[in-house]
């Protein structure tokens, strides 16, 4: 899977490093002083790197748990995000990571214990619910069989009374969760798109059927499951494609017990949009009619509103619709 793995010298003997490396016996291991020497330095080409990215094992020293952006939460007060990984093994053309990072390599921070310690330290500051989101700079579960992220974090975080953990993913790697007892304060949020969007824009991701099947397994096992229709992409036959998606959701999943559904139209920070458009100028997605407001590029306001209104209404037309949250730019 990875031809070359870079390992920071100071964590080359870390048990998690050794365990991860043992799963890649054919990879060539190269030591480095700091992951920044390889990742995100200048003069890198995300598009070329994405064809054969390397894995980097590193230690995260600071800023492990960050306040979540205002539009990120589920109408909750205390929202934080963290990333045990940087970048994603999938190749979604709309992904903001392409604009945020110059590098397409995948970084895994192996010092999970430090992340958990930071989460504990934050959680004791209030008795109110505190949300921790994973899956902002990576897909939470895509590499779970290798990283054992879910096992390591869920057991620790679920023991904190006021802590809630949301794992955002497009993957079907739920085996480790299914081996565990379900936790009410751990929500697995699946990002779903119509098959046409998956085919054209979400390269190397599991099919819609596979994602729904993984979500269903978790539901049946008693785990809270949330859905994310974000980004919603305004494609040809938009209504037909998204109607069919919503039908598949309601048929496959227990709609009533879904934790929530988040909807948001495609949008990117202006600088990221420019970078990604330059990386993939031939991509039709970046040729739609957009407007640029408050440093963000999104569909023109009237279109964005129609998209979100239509989606919300279509979801609510089904009985027992769970809470719907809109992710918009204010």
């Amino acid at each position, binding site marked *: 899977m990875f031809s070359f793995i870079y390992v920071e010298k100071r964590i080359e003997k870390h048990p998690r490093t050794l365990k991860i490396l043992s799963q890649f016996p054919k990879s*060539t291991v190269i030591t*480095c002083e700091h992951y920044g*020497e*390889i990742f995100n*330095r200048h003069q*890198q080409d995300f598009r*070329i790197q994405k064809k054969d990215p390397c894995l980097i094992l590193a230690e995260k020293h600071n800023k492990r748990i960050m306040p979540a952006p205002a539009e990120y939460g589920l109408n909750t007060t205390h929202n934080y995000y963290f990333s045990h990984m940087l970048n994603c093994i999938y190749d979604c053309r709309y992904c903001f990571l392409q604009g945020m990072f110059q590098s397409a390599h995948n970084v895994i921070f192996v010092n999970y214990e430090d992340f958990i310690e930071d989460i504990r330290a934050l959680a004791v500051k209030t008795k109110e619910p505190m949300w921790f989101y994973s899956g902002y700079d990576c897909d939470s579960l895509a590499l779970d069989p290798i990283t054992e992220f879910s096992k390591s974090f869920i057991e620790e975080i679920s023991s904190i009374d006021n802590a809630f953990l949301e794992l955002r993913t497009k993957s079907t790697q739920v085996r480790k969760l299914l081996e565990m007892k379900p936790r009410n304060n751990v929500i697995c949020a699946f990002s779903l798109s119509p098959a046409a969007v998956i085919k054209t824009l979400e390269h190397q991701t599991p099919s819609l059927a596979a994602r729904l099947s993984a979500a269903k397994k978790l539901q049946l096992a008693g785990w809270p499951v949330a859905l994310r229709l974000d980004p919603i992409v305004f494609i040809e036959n938009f209504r037909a494609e998204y109607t069919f998606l919503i039908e598949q959701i309601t048929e496959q999943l227990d709609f009533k017990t879904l934790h929530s559904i988040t909807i948001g139209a495609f949008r990117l920070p202006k600088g990221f949009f420019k970078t990604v458009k330059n990386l993939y100028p031939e991509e*039709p997605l970046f*040729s739609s009619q957009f407007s640029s407001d408050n440093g963000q590029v999104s569909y023109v306001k009237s279109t964005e509103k129609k998209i979100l209104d239509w989606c919300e209404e279509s979801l609510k037309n089904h009985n027992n619709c769970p809470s719907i949250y809109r992710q918009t730019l204010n």
Partner: protein
Amino acid sequence: MQLTGTTTLLVALKAEAQPLIDHYRLKSVQQHPFPIYANEQLKIVITGIGKCPSAAALAHTAAFFSILPNHIWINFGIAGHKDHAIGTAVAVSKVISKSSRQTWYPNLIKLPNTLVKPLTTHDAVVDDYVDDTLCDMEAAGFMSAGSSLHIKNECLFVFKLISDNKLSHAKNITKSLVVEIVKTHIPTLEALIKKAEMRVQDARNFELELGSELFEKWHFSQTQKSQLREGIRRFKALDKQTLWQDMELNNCATAKDVIENLNRRLQKLLPKF
């Protein structure tokens, strides 16, 4: 000088270049300041020994030849290592300058029968082979110049062949030995070039051809030029079947008309709610 080669090899010695010149039937295109041999796909620059000549040769080639975006640059040649057998092929993972302690990480591609090792660039010939890195006299100059010239890291490779070790020091290197080990590894070098080319290929294609011929027919201001380029990009992205050149533009009196015409066509291509 209009060469459109897509890969350039920088080698220190003529003996390192000769087997490749013969194999690829390269023609001499320049003798001074650096001898350069080329065909349509490949250029070989003989830099001379040392970091500075290596850096200068890269800068010279990049400045004086038509280099396409995502051109591949390879520092190729012989190097020493304490243990590895003479003739061993090595893809260099890290270049360390012995004098400045600066480091660079060239790009890597998995190749058959090729080790992956770090390399130290020295200012003079060494024969003590103290650590587990390869030793040469050019790679740091090559990487430093590549970095200064903003060449993408994905386009910089260092590929070396072991010519000396603890048992057979650098003083024993002969021209015929160099020719022999280079000849042996032409297929590996070729595999490196092909794989590197493949990686950058599609990133290269779309950077071409964006309507500059229209600038001769109508007068476009700078703003209009960028509007036109963006419009053509969007048109090409949204309609991959139709050539934008086939658009009816003969009725357009001004550059503004051309852009409006293009925008009307774009509107028709966008999905409607």
